């Protein structure tokens, strides 16, 4: 599947950050293990993974707060080895925001500009422009202690943007905000990135945040990069069970390989019968067994006498109500684990009694093969 950037703004294919075989060890523990990655100019790129996967280590190495044990990092074509954080063309938005408590908003934003000794009101103009970009105009004289969490986050953003870096690094910038504000800031951050056109590298453990904002995502586990792709591909075509599991729910189905050729696989399953599916790029055959996955929302309840070309029958064993949607756990004869099904509530899925026999429709395209 081709990668689809979420933006309309044309992106260059020039690399901005190149990470080559970077390893970071602490004694015997490898925080990052032979990671290679290319981030393009003007891209909104996310490093996604559970805590301890090495994503923050990688971000801090790009910023210059940490150094690779081996491997190389270059930013804008320039190797970063031996260049301290203060001379790198990157700026960072810290997880704790790191707002200087002894300075007011204006002084915080102007912090990095002071050293440049800008002439004729240029500094003031740039500070005001940056404050306007993050909608903080008029709050310049406030002290950091008088700001709300969301406002502090905006100050941190303005303080980094005012430096006009080649790359803006964001370390879990939204994790301290409440849900509503977080969702609002996701939209704003994306909009801001599109407006300024700077390469953004975001570290997050929130898969929805990464999916909503990024052009591309690197999913990381245990110091290794598992998959790099567009949000849609990561979600729809995860390379392995771990990636599939981390990005929302996934039903896994055991399968026997019947036929394997260049681009496709034909497999036999107990619940879904014989299925022909795309072969993943990195598919490594491990004997005759394979794993198929299908997202819960790709299974639809068939009402009354409706039929579908592809359907499975089963019995509802659990029902969980979530407001706009309902999760149904459906036992299918032959499958060792019941299927989890997400159904919107507009047709009354929330009223299906436990124990009802139902039929589920699916699209064989939605059944994807993956490594274990």
């Amino acid at each position, binding site marked *: 599947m081709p990668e689809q950037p979420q933006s309309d703004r044309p992106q260059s294919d020039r690399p901005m950050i190149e990470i080559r075989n970077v390893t970071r060890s602490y004694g015997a523990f490898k925080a990052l293990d032979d990671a290679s990655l290319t981030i393009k100019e003007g891209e909104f790129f996310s490093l996604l993974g559970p805590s301890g996967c090495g994503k923050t280590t990688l971000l801090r190495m790009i*910023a*210059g*707060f940490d150094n690779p044990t081996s491997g190389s990092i270059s930013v804008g074509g320039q190797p970063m080895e031996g260049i*301290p*954080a*203060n*001379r790198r063309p*990157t*700026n*960072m938005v*810290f997880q*704790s925001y*790191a707002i*200087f*408590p*002894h*300075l007011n908003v204006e*002084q915080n934003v102007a*912090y*990095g500009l002071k*050293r*440049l000794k800008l002439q004729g009101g240029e500094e003031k103009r740039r500070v005001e422009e940056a404050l306007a970009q993050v909608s903080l105009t008029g709050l310049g004289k406030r002290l950091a202690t008088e700001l709300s969490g969301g406002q502090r986050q905006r100050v941190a953003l303005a*303080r*980094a943007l005012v*430096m006009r870096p080649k790359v803006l690094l964001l370390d879990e910038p939204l994790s301290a905000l409440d849900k509503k504000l977080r969702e609002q800031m996701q939209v704003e951050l994306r909009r801001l990135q599109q407006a300024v056109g700077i390469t953004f590298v975001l570290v997050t453990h929130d898969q929805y945040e990464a999916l909503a904002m990024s052009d591309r995502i690197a999913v990381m586990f245990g110091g290794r990069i598992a998959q790099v792709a567009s949000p849609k591909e990561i979600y729809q075509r995860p390379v392995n069970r771990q990636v599939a599991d981390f990005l929302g729910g996934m039903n896994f189905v055991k399968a026997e390989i019947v036929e394997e050729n260049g681009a496709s696989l034909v497999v036999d399953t107990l619940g879904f019968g014989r299925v022909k599916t795309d072969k993943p790029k990195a598919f490594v055959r491990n004997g005759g067994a394979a794993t198929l996955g299908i997202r819960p929302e790709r299974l639809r309840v068939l009402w009354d006498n409706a039929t579908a070309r592809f359907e499975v029958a089963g019995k509802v064993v659990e029902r969980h109500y979530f407001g706009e949607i309902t999760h149904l756990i459906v036992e299918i004869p032959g499958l060792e684990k019941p299927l989890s099904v997400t159904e919107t509530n507009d047709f009354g899925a929330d009223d299906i009694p436990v124990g009802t026999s139902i039929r589920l429709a699916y699209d064989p395209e939605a059944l994807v093969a993956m490594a274990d």
Partner: protein
Amino acid sequence: MTAAAEGSPPLRMTRARRNALLQSEPVQGLALISPTLVYALILLVLPILVVIAHSFWTQHYLTIDRSFTLENYRIALTEPIYRDLLWRSLYISLTVSLLTVLLAYPIAYFISFHGGRHKSLWLFLITIPFWTSYLLRVMSWKVILGYNGVLNSGLMGLGIIDEPSTALLYNSSAVIITLTHAWAAFAILPIFVSLEKVDRTLVEAAKDLGDGPLRSFLRVTLPLSAPGVISAALIVMIPTVGDYVTPKLVGGKDGVMIANAIQAQFGKASNWPLGAALSVTTMVIVTLMAGATVLVIRALQRLAR
């Protein structure tokens, strides 16, 4: 029976009210501080009031004339000897607190930023000199600075000087050296505490925004540790103005401080009112100097922005 029934509700109410009173925060707070408060009132406020009262009276050989007079203050402020002693005391205590803070800051910085797992060990080591008596520590400075002392014999042994220097002991420099050493730990601890409170990501943020190590120190770490510097300066300055043991032991004729004069007035000279006036004058001046120090450090902190 009726009387009992009528009598019990008010009784219960008083008890409830008393309980509420005992559980109210101001009352509990007062109860907690009252032992210290009473102690401080008896041993601090009362003596100071007595001293202030004496400073307005006059000594007549063995009796004290209790009529109001400002004569003692006139003597304290205009007599050259007291004026000189006061100036010298202020000069010594200011120099000592400046030197102590300057020497203590790097130590506190090292322990806080580079102490690693051994922070508490370092702090513990700093307290070791306090295991011996203050007098012993002053005496050992005598041994170091004296005519036949360690420093003189060392310098002579190296051929740097031909005969023992008398400039080392029995002058105000000796007092300054001894006091600076004696008060070091009291300056290191508050500075260390305020450095510990500096969020390390703020230093990283400063670096990220283009500051080298020195600039980020001057613009972030130093201003944020100013409260520690202020308390260190005050902790050293206030008691050293009134020190009289150290000048007596190592100060000689040129190292005498105002407290020695006060002690003499209350002792040998037996002029309590003059001693009291000198004490009150010193107290007022120390208060002013402490206030000025706070203002100066705050101004410097603002400059760093």
